């Protein structure tokens, strides 16, 4: 087996107290990953707790409210109070529920969400826990595993609302996973690897963020990511006005909080992947001038950059949730199958064509599993992405979907943007 874990910083095996008693190899390959995992879990779980507070505060600001401000200064201890409340709540299992699955499904959801954290490149060098060959595939696989928790939880509750929520989420997540996977392929053509850390490194090498080559891919990924995490405006599996609480209607107390943590962890992962693949990960132009690459300060700064980018995307998630109404189920499916997936496919075809064209024109050189661009190559790819790919996909899809109205089961009316009521005195 290969070593999945990245190397420890050089100072770690020379730590004063431990290095006398433990072999340096053990320090680097056993103790260090454990330290990393512990730190990651602590930081992420705390972050998730505070994300709930952030969401409540942000929603409060959007809605002209104050938000939680009772527990602790400015409500800063609110997550703690929430946690204690959820822990102390009575743990209800419905009489006719399928007990084993009812118990195990929140655990599946939560574990799947937390496992995916392991491969995310949080920072340069030792800032990342592990860098595996199939990084992106691993994330997609694990997140598709998390769907099971939701589906089984909804089914095991033996409630009609839960079942409807579970069925909705099954269909929704499976369809958006396709769009999500396809949206990432365009970016893979530039990074030429599935390993997430290598993706960041390739963007560092090209000194550019992939979003400039892949605006369509980024947009599709972001929309599918929102749908994949069951957030508004795609929160149909838990639409409170229709399905009460969807798949977790019957869950209470700690089991509910597991689902809750899983949702926020998934948001974190989706944002982190978007940052890694499209927004340059921990790479920020000029960062290597401030700090020597490989130094401890550089790694810490890279972790900070990554965190800031991720938090910015998370803010987008909150913002979307509190300002948009909810899609209907069939509209959601239509968006996925008629817009997202064709657009992603068209994006792949166009990106590949332009890459080949660029190579033919001599603007791009492909060697040793990595790309090298001349200045003209950058200009060529960015301009084709924005000037040709975006409008072309928009026009073609608009045309196709216009035509396909005849085949719709449900009548679709054109949306009036400026319909006015009549008035009569």
């Amino acid at each position, binding site marked *: 087996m290969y070593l999945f874990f990245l190397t420890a910083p050089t100072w770690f095996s020379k730590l004063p107290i431990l290095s006398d008693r433990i072999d340096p190899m053990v320090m680097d390959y056993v103790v260090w990953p454990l330290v990393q995992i512990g730190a990651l879990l602590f930081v992420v779980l705390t972050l998730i707790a505070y994300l709930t507070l952030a969401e409540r505060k942000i929603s409060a600001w959007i809605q002209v409210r104050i938000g939680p401000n009772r527990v602790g200064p400015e409500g800063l201890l609110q997550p703690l109070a929430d946690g204690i409340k959820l822990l102390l709540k009575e743990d209800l299992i419905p009489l006719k529920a399928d007990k084993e699955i009812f118990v195990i499904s929140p655990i599946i959801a939560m574990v799947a969400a937390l496992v995916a954290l392991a491969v995310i490149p949080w920072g340069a060098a030792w800032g990342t826990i592990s860098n595996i*060959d199939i990084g992106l*595939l691993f994330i*997609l*696989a694990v997140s598709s595993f998390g*769907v*099971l928790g939701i589906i089984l939880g909804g089914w095991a509750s033996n409630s009609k609302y839960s*079942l409807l929520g579970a069925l909705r989420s099954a269909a929704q997540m499976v369809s958006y996973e396709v769009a999500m996977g396809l949206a990432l392929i365009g970016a893979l053509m530039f990074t030429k690897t599935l390993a997430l850390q290598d993706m960041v490194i390739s963007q560092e090498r090209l000194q550019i963020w992939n979003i400039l080559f892949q605006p369509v891919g980024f947009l599709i990924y972001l929309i599918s990511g929102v749908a994949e995490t069951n957030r508004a405006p795609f929160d149909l599996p838990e639409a409170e006005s229709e399905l009460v609480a969807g798949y977790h209607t019957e869950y209470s107390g700690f089991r509910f909080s597991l689902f809750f943590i899983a949702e926020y962890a998934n948001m974190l992962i989706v944002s982190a992947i978007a940052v890694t693949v499209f927004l340059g990960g921990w790479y920020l132009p000029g960062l290597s001038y401030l700090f020597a690459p*490989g130094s401890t300060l550089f790694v810490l700064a890279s972790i900070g950059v990554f965190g800031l980018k991720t938090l910015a995307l998370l803010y987008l998630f909150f913002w979307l949730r509190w300002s948009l109404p909810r899609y209907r189920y069939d509209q959601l499916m239509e968006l996925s199958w008629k817009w997202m997936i064709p657009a992603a496919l068209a994006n792949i075809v166009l990106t590949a064509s332009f890459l080949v064209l660029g190579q033919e024109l001599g603007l791009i050189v492909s060697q040793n599993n990595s790309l090298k661009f001349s200045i003209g190559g950058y200009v060529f790819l960015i301009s084709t992405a924005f000037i040709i790919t975006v409008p072309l996909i928009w026009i073609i899809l608009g045309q196709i979907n216009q035509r396909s109205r005849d085949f719709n089961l449900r009548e679709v009316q054109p949306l009036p943007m400026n319909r006015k009521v009549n008035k009569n005195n």
Partner: protein
Amino acid sequence: MRLVGLEAVLFYLFAVVAVLFAVFMITARNAVHSALLLISTLVATAGLYLLVNAEFVAGVQILIYVGGVLVLFIFVIMLVNVKEEDTNMFTRQLIVGGALSFFLALGVIAILLQTQKGNFFTLVSPSAPKIEQVQSSSNISPSHNISQNTIKVGQELYTKTVLPFEIASLILLVAIVGAVHLARERKQEKIYD
């Protein structure tokens, strides 16, 4: 090929999980339980793939089997609303079928033992190739110390096996069309026809 130490322990762990849950799967009363147990078996199998350095296949296994096929299974079970089978879980051919499979098991294992005689439980000679151990060296660029499995599989897939690959995509297309045709309802048919 030789797995020793921790890897051997992991092999047995995954193998025992796979076999046990497979047995539970065919004896579970509830179809959803069966599905969940099959998922466990498949995940254990993916672990085995990881042990023999087939990372890409392991990822594909979980992505497609667990995330796609088994979700579809559970979806269908919910759709057809299969309750626990309280009376007859097995067909009338339980004894015959069980006996047949038992003899099949005996036969397969006997053949294995016969053909692989001498390979079992013997110490592997020191000259046998060992599992690769790649030492990491650089702090900054880890790209060279991770497995190249995906790249290799991809290169072979798109060069030597292009034709089967295209045929596979054709199979998938046919399957999609067939499934849509089979599963659509009468009233949908009416609308389309």
